[in-house]
């Protein structure tokens, strides 16, 4: 019973803060709301018996990626800048399309995606995930490390142009 209460409370938190991200004009408020939404999703991972991913979610998303976003927003000093109004046609089409998409997905998921729950609990602690990662997925793991290195170099090249010019 307490599981269901936790689910509904944190689902509501995730959805409300996601709406704040999309609707609020100030990007700093949006970034902080996104952090709150990610924390609620970490609670969802705990409910889904994946505590390792919940920790990763908090450390990588709420910790690293959102700090990067906040640094960029503050570096560019976007807080006082007024966002120009979007064209009304684009606004209307965007809202109606995404609302229809969301309603259709929820309808079909509630109708056709109802599955029988597994009887035994899902064992996915850090040890099991690590063993699978380093046995079956060694090559993708190394490829991701090279991808991250390429991303570092790319970010330096893209944003450091004014430094090399001076």
């Amino acid at each position, binding site marked *: 019973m307490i*599981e269901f209460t936790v689910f509904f409370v944190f*689902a509501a938190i995730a*959805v409300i803060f*996601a709406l704040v*991200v*999309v609707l609020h004009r100030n*990007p700093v408020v949006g*970034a902080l709301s*996104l952090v709150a*939404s*990610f924390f609620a*999703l970490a609670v*969802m*991972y705990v409910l*889904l018996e994946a505590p*390792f*991913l919940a920790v*990763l979610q908090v450390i*990588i*998303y709420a910790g690293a*990626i959102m700090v*990067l*976003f906040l640094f*960029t*927003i503050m*570096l*560019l000093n*976007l807080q006082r800048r007024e*966002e*120009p109004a979007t064209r009304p046609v684009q606004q209307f089409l*965007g*809202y109606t*399309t*995404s*609302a229809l998409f*969301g309603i259709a997905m929820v309808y079909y*998921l*509630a109708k056709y*995606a109802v*599955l029988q*729950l*597994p009887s*035994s609990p*899902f064992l*996915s602690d850090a040890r099991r*995930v690590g063993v*699978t*990662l380093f046995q079956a*997925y060694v090559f993708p793991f190394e490829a*991701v490390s090279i*991808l991250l290195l*390429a*991303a*570092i170099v*790319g*970010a*330096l090249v*893209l*944003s450091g*142009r004014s430094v090399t010019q001076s």
Partner: protein
Amino acid sequence: MIPTHWFLILSAVLFAIGVCGVLTRKNGITIFMSIELMVNAVNLTFVAYARQFHQLHGLIFVFFIMAIAAAEAAVGLAIFISLHHHRETIDVDEANLMRW
């Protein structure tokens, strides 16, 4: 245990909110945050099905998606900083040239 399709419905709602943000906003950083929201909705779907079918592969995929989202955020924000240096704005409607 909470039924799997509830998590799928939550994920669908979050994804639709992210789509709404990408389609209606003009601020580049807000569009980027909406994309992160959609990535997280997909992650939730992966973990929900991983529990449903007792497969650890879904969790490994979420791990890789997180790494790729970090790389994407670094490069994308660098692009916005570069755009701000040249155009003094991050309005995506203003970014209409391939080079300058």
